[in-house]
């Protein structure tokens, strides 16, 4: 069998289709059936596709992942809770006993019929999204009422050590009504020795004047895979901010599609990728300016050590109607070893004529003059390098203002270089 054929996952679906949540509910079954058909036709994306030139998913196709059979028997060790509310998913399934949900949060499996017309509304014909639609079991269903300040909510995804190669495909639906605001801090964790696939899809709707700050901290185990797709739609005057830290996993693809649909919608997409020996980190963004007077800002920083590979692809589409668009994209990479490789592909596609759009990219090593300056002041070489790596990340991280998110990010990035250099 060709490595990229859909065989494994499609066969799982054929066997499970009636047993998955909503398996006998017509609208869900129809949605899953259509996704399965699409996935059967495409399979996992392969490197001949332009959007996947730099990221090879054949290790995922070869792994023959199966579903987690039962909830993990042993309770995982949870990181300390930072926000007043937390939703915990273990192997893609909601762990009620570990969670405290606010009134405006439910779970998808718990109330699937409430998701009709919502689930799949933003989905596109992306194979990875179809794979999720076909096999999702659960997810967060967050519906923040108009004018509500939701404060901060933690979303925690844990992979348990089952001894089998498992895959889970959580589907998270997030809707902020007019003028609502929320900081969502999402952390994904997994044991280092386990091979697993975490394939989350987020469908995010931000209504007029609403603000969602979405902080994603990816710390999957070093043998794990994450394929994450964020699909966000922002109405006029709304703001969607996404910050993604990729620090774990053997391979991660962080794909973000944001559409600015009404005047004066705004979007900040920032991120940092830290990859060490044997890791592959890919951030791919699509920004669709579909209304006038919208602003978008993107700053991505990638730090690569050992034999690692980083990818940044960023496309900005400015439609004809999107006059007075203000778009900015910057991606920078710091290579700490000769074996590291970065591929960067910025893309602007502009159909409006009154537009301010710029992008830039830099790739470099640590600055020897800066390193010597620090060492000449008595700072040991490894500490000096760590300081300069942290300084490089600062510009991307300083946009994250919520103190809980800052604390979570600091914890995830501090000491990274010391660990990689060890």
């Amino acid at each position, binding site marked *: 069998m060709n490595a990229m054929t859909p065989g494994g996952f499609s066969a799982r679906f054929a066997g499970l289709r009636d047993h998955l949540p909503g398996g006998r509910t017509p609208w869900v079954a129809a949605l899953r059936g259509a996704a399965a058909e699409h996935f059967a036709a495409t399979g996992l994306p392969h490197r001949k596709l332009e959007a996947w030139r730099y990221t090879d998913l054949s290790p995922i196709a070869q792994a023959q992942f199966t579903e987690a059979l039962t909830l993990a028997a042993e309770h995982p060790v949870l990181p300390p809770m930072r926000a007043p509310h937390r939703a915990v998913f273990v192997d893609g399934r909601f762990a009620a006993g570990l969670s405290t949900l606010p009134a405006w949060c439910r779970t998808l499996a718990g109330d699937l019929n409430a998701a009709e017309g919502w689930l799949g509304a933003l989905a596109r014909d992306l194979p990875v999204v179809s794979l999720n639609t076909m096999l999702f079991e659960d997810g967060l269903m967050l519906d923040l009422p108009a004018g509500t300040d939701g404060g901060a909510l933690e979303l925690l995804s844990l992979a348990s050590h089952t001894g089998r190669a498992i895959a889970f495909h959580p589907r998270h639906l997030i809707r902020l009504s007019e003028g609502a605001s929320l900081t969502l801090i999402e952390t994904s964790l997994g044991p280092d020795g386990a091979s697993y696939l975490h394939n989350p899809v987020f469908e995010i709707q931000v209504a007029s004047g609403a603000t969602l700050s979405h902080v994603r901290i990816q710390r999957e185990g070093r043998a794990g895979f994450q394929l994450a797709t964020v699909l966000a739609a922002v109405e006029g005057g709304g703001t969607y901010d996404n910050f993604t830290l990729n620090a774990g996993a053997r391979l991660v693809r962080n794909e973000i599609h944001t559409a600015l649909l009404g005047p004066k919608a705004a979007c900040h997409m920032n991120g940092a990728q830290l990859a060490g020996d044997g890791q592959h980190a890919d951030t791919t963004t699509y920004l669709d300016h579909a209304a006038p007077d919208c602003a978008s800002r993107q700053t991505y920083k990638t730090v690569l050590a050992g034999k690692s590979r980083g990818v940044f692809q960023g496309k900005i589409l400015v439609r004809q109607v999107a006059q007075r668009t203000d778009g900015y994209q910057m991606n920078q990479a710091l290579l700490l070893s000769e074996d590291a490789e970065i591929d960067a592909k910025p893309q602007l596609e502009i159909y409006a004529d009154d537009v301010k759009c710029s992008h830039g990219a830099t790739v470099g090593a640590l600055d020897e*003059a800066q390193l*010597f300056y*620090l*060492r000449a*002041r008595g*700072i040991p070489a490894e500490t000096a390098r760590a300081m300069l790596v942290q300084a490089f990340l600062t510009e991307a991280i300083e946009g994250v203002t919520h103190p809980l998110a800052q604390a979570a990010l600091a914890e995830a990035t501090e000491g990274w270089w010391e660990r990689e250099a060890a």
Partner: protein
Amino acid sequence: MLRIEGLTAEIDGKQILKGINLEVPTGEVHAIMGPNGSGKSTLSYVLSGREGYEITGGSATFNGVDILAMEPEERAAAGLFLAFQYPVELPGVGNANFLRTALNSIRKAKGEPEVDAMAFLKMARAKLKTLQMSDDMLKRNVNVGFSGGEKKRNEVLQMALLEPSLAILDETDSGLDIDALKIVSEGVNAMRGPNFSALVITHYQRLLDYITPDRVHVLMGGRIVKSGGPELALELEAEGYAKVAA
């Protein structure tokens, strides 16, 4: 005491230092003057351990220890300080964090207890005051957006906090107006004492009006060609390098 004997060094195969002999006894301030290209900055970089310079002969010892075999951070821990001619900008590194990390690295290397954030802030503020610098300096990124004068004052602030026993000041006067020159000089003079020595490298005599050296050495073509008392600096200023060295 700093003792340099027959020091030769090259960069990219080009010999710059052609046999330097120099002694700076503890407690003394010596000036090195010389025209552009004479090897002044190379000498300061070789002594502080910058990469890229090949030492082809001779020796440099500080209190009897061979400093040329040490890493730059080990030299700093041993009490050596280089005030850079062109202080380096460090975007993303806060000045307070930088200064405290440097101070504690040196203290740790010497087996002394580290200074906590509160105690450090108190120390730093006192030094800032004597250098007529604003507390804001601590919050800014290291040298980023600093004027020429601010950068040089920041060098002197670092020196004041790290309390080296031997300071090499590489063209610290360049780019300074007269007020900044006075403040920087006062900062250096405040360090003078029986346990502090300095090597003041300068192109012009001007700085030596404020920092009076015990000895003046003329560096030309990679060698010390003449040494004398403070009056030698005035002689150089009046008559030029070529004539004095002839």
